[in-house]
């Protein structure tokens, strides 16, 4: 009965001649015809929608109301660390002294911004136990690529280009193998042990002179701390390899342990996870990369250096891999992450990790009564369930996820990691109240019960969302990607 049912696209409400914004215009008399030679002038019609400010405001307000973020409710999306994004951070990033800075301004006019970059690099290094950081990478995967290109460059310098294998656990996030391939490596998958972590014994068969390095997260994607990490990193070092830390899971251990101390040579951070910068519906993120001293010469240029006359950009890095991104990285995101770190301080970061781990274990304890828990031990910040225990009707993880939508909860990550059947990966983060956790447990128990009593209901969920279950296969078969 709603006035506008279904999606109304921008172009469908366009009316010729309507204006949404009057830009400032040059008062100079010259015309398009005088200034642009005919062969370059647009002859193709420019079919952009024509809307008033009210139309645009209502349209995007409506789209926002058909979206769901952390501010809307519980978001235990495993591997994504959907913690609360403090509002302060937005205000700071939009201070005119940051927002209106052109990246190519003279350093004398950007000392505050350079100070932020310099400080953030140092703080990230301290938190991770690394020696040097670059803030250039735009996201986690980009940090990975940067790190792998650095390994590649170092190998070239050492005449070791035959080392072309990167070892990656089978539970790893897809960006790990994809980044390795993009950097020109071959990917060798390492199977997980029965306990869910890497056993040094199991790793041995893969060690060879062709190995350039190993990529790991710790805690790993099952949410388990790699207990034997010191042995593992030592083994890789012993054969001349580098160990790369995928920082997506740092939220579990910040303040408690540092990848650098575990023997990792490279680390990327996901500021849009661990450091509370909002995810924006899929970005922008920021994926700073840290390295130990032996790899520092390869970091992208330019680097901020401290000189007697102030902070400066320096391109003086003969072994650099070059640039991985235009300008200097996602500066506005870095401001937010740094402000978050200052807000919490060391004790706060440590408590955040402790709360995230505590909340995950609390849920794990209460949910394993009704759901399969393949790796039954204390977890870190997240854990992976493997479908329902008592499931005569074969309710699938996807059905559970879609059913959660009707309770106003964003579902956990589903079908990842790939090594767990019917995986349901739950990461509550520290941004939870006990009431919320208890309510979630009650709902999950309710679903377990309903899976037995009214399974067909679950298989057709959701019911209360703006659209029902969508046909993804159809979308891929006949792609409609624009109006």
């Amino acid at each position: 009965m709603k006035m506008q049912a279904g999606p109304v696209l921008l172009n469908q409400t366009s009316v010729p001649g309507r204006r949404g914004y009057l830009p400032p215009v040059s008062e100079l008399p010259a015309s398009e015809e005088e200034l642009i030679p005919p062969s370059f002038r647009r002859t193709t019609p420019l079919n952009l929608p024509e809307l008033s400010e009210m139309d645009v405001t209502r349209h995007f307000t409506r789209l926002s109301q058909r979206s769901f973020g952390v501010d809307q409710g519980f978001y235990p999306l495993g591997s994504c660390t959907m913690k609360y994004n403090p509002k302060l951070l937005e205000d700071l990033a939009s201070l005119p002294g940051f927002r209106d800075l052109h990246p190519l301004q003279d350093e004398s006019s950007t000392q505050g911004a350079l100070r932020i970059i310099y400080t953030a690099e140092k703080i990230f290094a301290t938190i991770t136990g690394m020696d040097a950081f670059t803030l250039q990478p735009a996201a986690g995967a980009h940090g990975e690529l940067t790190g792998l290109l650095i390994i590649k460059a170092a190998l070239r310098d050492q005449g070791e280009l035959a080392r072309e294998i990167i070892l990656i656990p089978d539970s790893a996030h897809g960006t790990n193998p994809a980044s390795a391939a993009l950097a020109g490596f071959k990917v060798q998958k390492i199977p997980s042990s029965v306990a869910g972590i890497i056993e040094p014994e199991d790793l041995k068969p893969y060690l060879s002179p062709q190995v350039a390095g190993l990529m790991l997260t710790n805690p790993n994607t099952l949410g388990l701390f790699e207990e034997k990490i010191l042995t593992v990193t030592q083994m890789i070092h012993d054969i001349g390899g580098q160990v790369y830390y995928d920082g997506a899971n740092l939220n579990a251990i910040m303040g408690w342990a540092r990848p650098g101390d575990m023997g990792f040579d490279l680390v990327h951070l996901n500021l849009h996870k661990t450091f509370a910068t909002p995810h924006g519906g899929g970005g922008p993120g920021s994926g700073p990369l840290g390295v130990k001293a032996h790899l520092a010469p390869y970091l992208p240029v330019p680097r901020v250096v401290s000189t007697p006359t102030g902070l400066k950009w320096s391109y003086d890095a003969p072994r650099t891999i070059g640039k991985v991104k235009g300008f200097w990285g996602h500066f506005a995101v870095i401001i937010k992450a740094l402000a978050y770190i200052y807000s919490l301080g060391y004790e706060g970061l440590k408590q955040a990790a402790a709360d995230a781990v505590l909340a995950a274990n609390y849920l794990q304890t209460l949910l394993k009564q009704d759901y399969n828990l393949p790796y039954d031990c204390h977890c870190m910040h997240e854990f992976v369930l493997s479908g329902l225990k008592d499931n005569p009707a074969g309710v699938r993880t996807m059905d559970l996820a879609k059913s959660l939508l009707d309770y106003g909860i964003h579902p956990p990550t589903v079908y990842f990691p790939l090594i767990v059947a019917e995986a349901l990966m739950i990461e509550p983060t520290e941004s939870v109240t006990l009431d919320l956790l208890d309510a979630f447990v009650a709902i999950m128990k309710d679903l377990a019960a309903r899976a037995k009593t009214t399974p067909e209901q679950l298989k057709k969920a959701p019911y209360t969302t703006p659209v029902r279950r969508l046909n993804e296969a159809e979308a891929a078969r006949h792609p409609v990607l624009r109006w």
Partner: protein
Amino acid sequence: MGHPYLPLTDPERRRMARVIGLQDPSELFAIIPETIRAQASFELPAHNEWAVKKLFTQWAAENTPCSQMISFLGAGAYEHAIPAALSYLVSRSEFLTAYTPYQPEFSQGLLQAFFEYQSLIAELTGMDVANASMYDGPTALAEAVLLAYNASNKREFIVISGLNPEAQQVLQTYTAHLPVKMHYLALREQEPEVNASLAPLLSGQTAAVIIQYPDFFGRLRLTKELLNLIKESGALSIIYLNDPVCLGLLEPPGALGADLVVGEAQSFGLPLSFGGPYLGFFAAKKDFLRNMPGRLVGKTTDSDGEEGFVLTLQTREQHIRREKATSNICTNQALCAITATIYLSLLGPTGLKEVALSTVKNSHYLYSQLTRIPAVQGLSPEPFFHEFVVGLPTADASFFPKMKEQGFFPGYQLPTGRPFSTNACLLYTSELRTKDEMDRFCEAIERCVP
């Protein structure tokens, strides 16, 4: 500790630990080797909100932003008026605090916005399809080259001079380990005709030719003939745009026959923010749909037959295809794409044209005024768009500081010899620049040169 970002309280923590079967929550960290734990601590007190605000406001005050100056800086990052409605809408937390829309039933708004973004980019560039965003212009270009490399199985590329140096450097980094050969077609400024110089370089081994439009120095060189020449050689054409605002006035590359059109869309409502986050766009002929990097949103129907949107063709992507994915990109620039969508919706065709035309009018006026000054050397023969090159009296080390003192950022000083000789500056004139400001800028330069 009671902190606004940590909702749990100590009694709750203890209660939770008991449910888990622990005395104390910290036992959960016992698994971390003692030696490691000992090293993790460092000095940093918690700061209340006011203190953090004060500190960052202080840092902000140590900068001189363009909004306090009269700036002629462009070169890949552009000052524009940003509509107030845009800033409000894009900061709504349903957009801001959402993850990637993996659960489409909860994310129809986001998905529709991305679908609209794809439509607008495709429309503007004159291409068949566009993806839902890339990190920025330079990485979008690098990915376009990788696409051409993988799709063509050829190993040679030609980069026509006048490519944004940032993009060129990133391209170099991304391809350094690959068995490719990059030819750089250097053209002197007196040589406006590209075709003649390009022809001899093209061969059956050429995977693609990369051309910026307008080029880094503001020059207009992209023609249908040039693209035909490339097509005839069997190579792909990759067009790079620093600033798609120009497409309000210029014929879109798609209409000229381009295969891939990529670039930087910071101009569409994103603040300068000292270089990021910006917005890479990636548009292609539909032949390359399944080779494209990044996310794509498609239309489909739900179980009731209602229209809806989903992420689609995900088999190209890393989370499915892993090492065989078309790219490793995962988190992209979603909110920036929404920003651009809102910007274009507000501006509409007339607004976009007005912005483009204003920058062109301003640049031509300023060029003509500057080149009247004896100490200034004009280095941008027509046709140029909204950026141009002049020789400024920058040999005098006090030139930039003096200009800054008077409130001007005079433009971007080009590295000597690339391709201009010494003292060359690249200037951009946004729609915000008034005639009066430009006149005062010329006067200030005249005063600077005794």
